[in-house]
């Protein structure tokens, strides 16, 4: 069973995607390089930055690190950069849908909430 999300970065496209489950044994160690990459990317971003969360599950420890990622994005947005978050949730999963709603209320970044049939 996978306990860490699949992470896909492409600097040239300005795209970052996390998918799958997130409950890594050492959540800080897992997310540290992602946050570092994002911080470095923010110094020299593409005209549009798109972060996609297509998670089927994340534990509460991961939720903190997801907020850290969104906070970096919010800072970019405040600096006038074009950013967007795609929040995918399985159509049956009201908890994952609500989590996306909650994050979008917590950070000032454009969110797209997208339901899909897994």
């Amino acid at each position: 069973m996978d306990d860490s999300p699949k992470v896909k970065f492409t600097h040239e496209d300005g795209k970052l995607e996390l998918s799958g489950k997130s409950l890594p044994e050492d959540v800080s160690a897992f997310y540290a390089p992602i946050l570092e990459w994002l911080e470095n990317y923010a110094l020299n971003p593409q005209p549009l930055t798109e972060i996609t969360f297509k998670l089927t599950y994340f534990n509460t420890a991961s939720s903190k690190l997801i907020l850290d990622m969104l906070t970096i994005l919010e800072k970019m947005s405040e600096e006038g950069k074009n950013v967007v978050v795609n929040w995918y949730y399985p159509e049956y999963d009201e908890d994952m849908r609500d989590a996306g709603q909650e994050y979008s209320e917590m950070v000032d970044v454009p969110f797209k909430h997208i339901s899909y049939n897994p």
Partner: protein
Amino acid sequence: MLKHSSTSGFLDFVYDFYKGMKEHEITLVYEGEINHQIMKAFTSLAEGHMTKHAESELLQKKVYHVMVECLQNISKHASHPEVKDDTDYNRGIFLVSRNNDVYNITTGNIIKKEKILYLKELLGHINSLSKTDLNELYKKQLKEGHLSDKGGAGLGFIDIRRKTGKDLEYQFLPLSDSHSFFLFTSTIPRK
């Protein structure tokens, strides 16, 4: 003779244990070290069990979530009176039971008595909140809280109550001057 009677006493216990499990509709019971591998094994077992019983995907996710948070609580907070440095002491009991209406996830582990007051206040506070206030508390803790060295975000109990919609149930049983046994049960309605 003595050996024989103690063996048969033990087997009687095993049978009573089996009957007790059936009576309380326990589908999984474990006592021992709780680590990441054990957590993965149990959640995977439970997923298999629930798929077999054709539970809805949303219910499966809720049970899975509560199991993960409860098991991580033990691996972060368990203690033992005879273990001096208990930072790596992660033992406890873990039970999953299921009846027509609900799943119950129960954990038990030894904690230092000095943690009881804090836990009582925290759990009591979480139980006293309305759904809206609970969501506000979650967001506040998510924003202002820090990850502990062991990777705890202080969100587990709040999120269990949010996702189950049920009060958190708990008990503290005194073991010694310094330690108590902490029992915790979450109830997840099947419908």
